[in-house]
């Protein structure tokens, strides 16, 4: 019901939205909750377990009652709080967790079975017969559990993340937060003021307080106006600070587009990481409900929420409102309602010394003990101190058990709040979040005056810490009423009294938990699920603790509290994961030949963030194998071109590079001659192979190292580690030049012929023997030429500055094609190297050492190097080790697969008999056979032996002969041309 003359909604801007398909009238500035209450729609949701009717209970993000679904189709957004969702024309909302409808929900039958569904009942049943758990019980439980539903479709909305920095972050823009921001802003500090509401002012907008002679709402509006005129102040509405992290980092969720229809490029949400030198938590407090029988009916709300709907939205949540309280504050609700012309049925105050009513009846010393009304509240029963009971017809009960300061953020870094007996609640413990102070209601100071004073004082302290000069703030006058209350957690009596309205946890459940020895507060929480619902116990935790304390005969402080953990409000995965959807999870790296490869029809595959061509299909080829076989033959018989730019290239310069390389490689590099290249093996300090590659000496003090594609980053980091942490005495400078050079393998018997048409100065075997390297020019452009070979053919790698990469690749391929060759991809590259027994990370997979791969001789005995000592541990050498071998099929089945296991020919393929495994396989068109590289226990001593390869997954068993891993040209004649 709308109340004229009240509220901040724009009565000149009516609009309509839908709830469960029905049109609802509203005004700009309404939330879905205020609009539904205005339309007298009380039942909005169903509870989690018993599917009891639920309505609006609170007025902010903590509301445990009215969870709805917004939108439909792919944008469907479940579990949205109706109290937070602002209305706009065309907004579509729906109830959830009900079937077939909110009104007729079949699962509300659960409510009748409640005696059997108490806390933890499921731990004691559903165990027989065993197979029924997964086939029957669990599927039924899962279907009835959950609240809202995801659409199941890819999220279509845009989200973003951002960083912000400030001197002072003020969390909450109620009187304390506004005063803090004003104080700091006027002093010139960089201030960020965040508030989760669409309008700043906090409780001032829901109350009829006066500040400095004006209404609280006006004072807040003026403060905001002053702040928004300051360049050094950033005001962030609709922004909830969600967590406090180390060194002054805060997470904050900004709801950018939820109140807009039609977003375009506007993000729906932005997740902020705010770095603040100091912060002031002015998060306010949350009024706590009271547990009494059937206290969960729609229409039963917190007293402050009723005031908010009245004063902020101009809505009376009922026509005949009853107040139930243990404190003075709740009487404001009655006064505000009466002043607005809404009928107050009475105030039921548990205190004998409660204040008298001002135009309403006060039932002193009484307590509400039951309610009636199936889908909305119709009446409450209350009990006088003498045990007499009476009933009031009422459609709205405004209850207040006192206030809980929102201490959550002060606990995010493991701080524990302190029990305060005066206000019967927890208050923040000082210093639990470095750099943060608390002010106002969240600090247990409930009067407006105290909020203003603490806000100002908090800002002054922060400014002092930061060395920013200020003038002391003049505090405007404001009410400073004392906060008086009497403990009231749960009204004694039969029936179910709700603590956690969402998860349906009742006083009985907590008592049962205590009886079953779940006496620790953590055990109780976990056993009953108390506080584990979407509101994370914001409404219920303190009352539940009090009930547990009572049941276990302890005080509340010694009962302790569960931990508040981030986020303060639920945060969408899309917001925290913004930017990653699609291809944004990691950068994409493209070689200079990418376009030419794609143009040639090559499928591109991912390799260490790069994309590399798998194969280059020629006309008429239908399978990758056909292309691969052709490309291998091409390299073996003519010439092939392959982009190898993705391999890491590290430029090392300085007088001590030789010594440095001797320390990082197992073999010697200081003895390498200028103009020569050498293969190197690099170990981790634990003796396992880290990486391999060739390193060329371009000058006396100048080397360029090649790493594998995947290890380029880790090797760079490792080299810097070795230099800075172990040998800073060495004068070495290193830099990645991977990106500088476009480098192409030119491999095959015709490779020199191909190059000699391109290089400005022709080369021959004498000027450019195997493993030679040096500078060359191509059309006057400086490049580098290395005579190295991964394929085992007479081959080169030619490098030019990347800007020429695309052009050179096309040129090389064109020339190769003219000579009967062409481009080759990763598949052919793999076959070529397997034929030669060259290893990749399939073999040096982080568990193999130099001994295993047959390179023990490469670990120089003349010097120390990283990993040498540990590689000599007894367990890393000897017959027990699986050693690199080659495999060739010898039986009817000719296929070898990677990831298969090896067994002695007559053994069963079971774990106990495992002898090794295959790492790399390929079909060699050169040798017309499948070839495999494998690790086999004591393998080097078993060449010639017949073994069994078993691939259970692919259903393949192949008899293989063990051989040397170098299948082709073992003498290496071909590389020397």
């Amino acid at each position, binding site marked *: 019901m709308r109340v004229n003359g009240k509220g901040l909604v724009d009565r000149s801007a009516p609009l309509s939205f839908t709830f469960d398909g029905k049109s609802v009238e509203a005004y700009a500035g309404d939330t879905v909750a205020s609009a539904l209450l205005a339309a007298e729609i009380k039942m909005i949701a169903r509870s989690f377990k018993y599917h009891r009717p639920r309505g609006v209970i609170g007025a902010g993000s903590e509301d445990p009652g009215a969870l709805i679904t917004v939108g439909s189709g792919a944008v469907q957004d479940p579990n949205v709080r109706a109290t937070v969702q602002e209305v706009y024309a065309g907004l579509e909302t729906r109830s959830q967790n009900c079937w077939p409808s909110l009104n007729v929900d079949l699962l509300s039958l659960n409510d009748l079975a409640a005696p059997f569904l108490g806390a933890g009942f499921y731990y004691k049943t559903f*165990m027989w017969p065993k197979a029924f758990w997964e086939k029957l019980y669990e599927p039924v439980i899962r279907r009835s559990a959950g*609240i809202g539903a995801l659409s199941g479709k890819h999220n279509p909305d845009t989200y973003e993340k951002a960083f912000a920095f400030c001197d002072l972050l003020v969390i909450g823009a109620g009187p304390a937060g506004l005063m803090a921001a004003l104080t700091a802003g006027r002093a010139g500090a960089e201030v960020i003021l965040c508030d989760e509401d669409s309008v700043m002012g906090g409780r001032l907008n829901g109350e009829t307080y006066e500040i400095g002679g004006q209404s609280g709402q006006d004072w807040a509006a003026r403060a905001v106006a002053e702040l928004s005129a300051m360049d050094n102040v950033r005001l962030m509405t609709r922004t909830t600070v969600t967590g406090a992290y180390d060194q002054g980092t805060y997470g904050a969720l900004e709801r950018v587009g939820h109140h807009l229809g039609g977003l375009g490029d506007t993000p729906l949400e932005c997740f902020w990481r705010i770095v603040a030198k100091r912060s002031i938590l002015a998060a306010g407090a949350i009024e706590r409900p009271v547990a009494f029988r059937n206290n969960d009916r729609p229409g039963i709300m917190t007293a402050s929420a009723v005031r908010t709907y009245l004063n902020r939205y101009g809505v009376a949540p009922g026509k005949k409102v009853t107040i139930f309280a243990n404190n003075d504050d709740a009487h404001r609700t009655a006064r505000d309602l009466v002043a607005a012309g809404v009928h107050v049925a009475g105030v039921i105050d548990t205190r004998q010394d409660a204040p008298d009513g001002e135009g309403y009846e006060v039932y002193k010393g009484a307590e509400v003990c039951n309610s009636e009304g199936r889908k909305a509240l119709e009446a409450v029963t209350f009990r006088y101190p003498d045990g007499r009971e009476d009933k009031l017809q009422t459609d709205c009960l405004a209850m207040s058990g006192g206030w809980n300061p929102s201490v959550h953020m002060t606990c995010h870094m493991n701080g524990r709040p302190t029990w305060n007996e005066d206000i019967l609640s927890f208050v923040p413990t000082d210093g639990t979040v470095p750099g943060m102070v608390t002010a106002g209601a969240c600090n247990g100071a409930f009067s407006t005056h105290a909020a203003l004073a603490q806000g100002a004082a908090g800002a002054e302290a922060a400014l002092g810490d930061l060395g920013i000069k200020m003038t002391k703030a003049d505090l405007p006058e404001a009410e400073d009423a004392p906060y008086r209350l009497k403990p009231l957690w749960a009204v004694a009596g039969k029936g179910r009294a709700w603590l956690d309205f969402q998860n349906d946890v009742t006083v009985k459940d907590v008592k049962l938990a205590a009886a079953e020895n779940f006496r620790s507060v953590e055990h109780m929480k976990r056993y009953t699920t108390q506080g584990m619902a*979407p509101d994370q116990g914001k409404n219920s935790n303190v009352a539940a603790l009090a009930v547990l304390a009572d049941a276990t005969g302890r005080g509340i402080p010694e009962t302790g509290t569960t931990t508040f953990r981030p986020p303060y409000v639920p945060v*969408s995965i899309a917001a925290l*994961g913004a930017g*990653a959807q699609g291809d944004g999870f990691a950068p994409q790296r493209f070689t200079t030949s990418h376009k030419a490869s794609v143009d040639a029809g090559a499928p591109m595959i991912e390799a260490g963030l790069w994309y590399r061509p798998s194969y280059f299909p020629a006309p008429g080829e239908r399978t990758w194998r056909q292309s691969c076989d052709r490309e291998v033959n091409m390299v073996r018989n003519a010439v092939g071109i392959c982009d190898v730019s993705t391999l890491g290239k590290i430029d090392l310069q300085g007088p001590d590079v030789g010594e440095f390389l001797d320390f990082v490689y197992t073999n010697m590099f200081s003895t390498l001659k200028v103009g020569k290249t050498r293969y190197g093996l690099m170990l981790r300090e634990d003796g396992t192979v880290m990486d391999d590659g060739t390193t060329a000496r371009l000058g006396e003090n100048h080397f360029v190292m090649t790493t594998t594609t995947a290890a380029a980053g880790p090797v760079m980091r490792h080299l810097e580690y070795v230099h800075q942490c172990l040998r800073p005495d060495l004068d070495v400078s290193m830099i990645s030049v991977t990106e500088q050079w476009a480098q192409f393998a030119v491999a095959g018997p015709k490779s020199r012929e191909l190059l000699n048409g391109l290089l400005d100065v022709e080369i021959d075997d004498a000027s450019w023997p195997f493993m030679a390297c040096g500078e060359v020019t191509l059309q006057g452009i400086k490049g580098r030429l290395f005579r190295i070979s991964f394929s085992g053919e007479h081959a080169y790698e030619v490098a030019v500055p990347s800007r020429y990469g695309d052009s050179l690749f096309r040129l090389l391929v064109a020339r190769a094609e003219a000579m009967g060759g062409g481009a080759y991809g990763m598949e052919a590259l793999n076959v070529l190297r397997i034929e030669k027994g060259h290893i990749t990370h399939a073999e040096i997979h982080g568990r193999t050492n130099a001994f295993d791969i047959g390179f023990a001789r490469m670990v120089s005995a003349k010097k120390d190097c990283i990993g040498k000592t540990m590689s000599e541990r007894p367990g890393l050498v000897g017959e027990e080790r699986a050693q690199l071998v080659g495999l060739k099929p010898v039986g009817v089945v000719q296929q070898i697969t990677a990831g298969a296991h090896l067994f002695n020919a007559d053994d069963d393929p079971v774990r106990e008999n495992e002898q090794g495994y295959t790492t790399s396989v390929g079909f060699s068109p050169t040798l017309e056979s499948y070839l495999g590289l494998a690790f086999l226990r004591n393998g080097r001593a078993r060449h010639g032996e017949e073994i069994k390869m078993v691939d259970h*997954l692919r259903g393949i068993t192949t008899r293989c002969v063990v051989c040397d891993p170098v299948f082709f040209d073992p003498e290496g004649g071909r590389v020397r041309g």
Partner: protein
Amino acid sequence: MRFSSWKVFTEGLSGNKGWSAHWRDAQPKSEYDYIIIGGGGHGLSTAYYLAKNHGITNVAVLEKGYLGGGNVGRNTTIVRANYFLQGNSEFYSHSLKLWETLEEDLNYNVMHSQRGLINLFHSDGQRDAFARRGNMMINQGDDAILLDREGVRKELPYLDFEQTRFPIYGGLFHKRGGTARHDAVAWGYARGASDRGVDLIQNCEVTGIDIVDGVVKGVQTTRGPIKGNKVAIIVAGRSGQVAAMAGRRLPIESHVLQAFVTEGLKPVIDHVISFGMGHFYMSQSDKGGLVFGGDLDFYASYASRGNLPMKEHVMEAGMTLMPMIGKAKVLRSWGGIMDMTPDGSPIIDKMEGIDGLYIDCGWNYGGFKAVPASGWCMAHLMATDTPHDVAAKYRLDRFRTGIGIMDEEGTGSQHNLH
């Protein structure tokens, strides 16, 4: 008291007045035969199997906080047996078999649910590595199926198959993999151990280990000294501090691992899904929350809480893999303290040189699924002084000798990389 549907029914009819404590709160005696330091999953299961398998019941479990308050109460509840190295393979296989009869054994519904685990791979190289793993699982007698892209699509149609950064090539499907209700595992073992006579002592912090001439004599605690002939350290992330009481350094660095849960949602994810390129895994709990996690925060920590960069990384992985979860809202995030070893595999061993002192630690972030077999094998070791067959490779000296290192990740002796 025996739990059953009938019992729930009759209690329901009579006002649920007849339920009693799931376990006794014991006061510490001055002496026990066996003392277990740590009332987490592994400590409780060790106590249970000492009593059940070996008839040893003069046992105290000393817990500095509340039972099951460590990693068993703060993990992502995944149960699987998909290891590929000798040593791990047989151990986790044994553990999974114990899971499969755990409810009957404990008379406690731990909601073990074999929903199936799919490990996605994104390149040929990863497929081969998963093939090796899957083949070993079958060698061991467990189950594995290699799915291609279409096979994955059939099971998980909602993944983003158009994404080209790390396209989905296929997955290794382990049907017997799944989840369980983590707290219930601790409570079920506690109840079983307590019923058999084990004393479970909460709020009892061990402050010293008494060792005389290389022989354990007992422990000092915040509730007084307790004598014992055999003492086991089973304290996960706190292993370093407790071992230091015995003058030992361990090959362990403690790290924070974060986990996340969303608000309750209607069923949308049936399996446990693991995204190889993103270190992301997710399942949906019976309550409807999406339960997920990723990598360590990567810095040594005892804070049981993490920071934003890893939270963001995990969510980013989720969004690139399965953007349909975008509007699920994270309700809570938390952290556990992981006892990371240099090869990512655990230790179940005697403490060499100290008679009567045993250690069970180094579970990295895979300790939950190990709870049954860890207790089974640790109880065996303590009772018989010989290692159980399936845990014989979990030796403490393997790092010194290099014999039997089990590095499933292949990342070597950097503790946080496993």
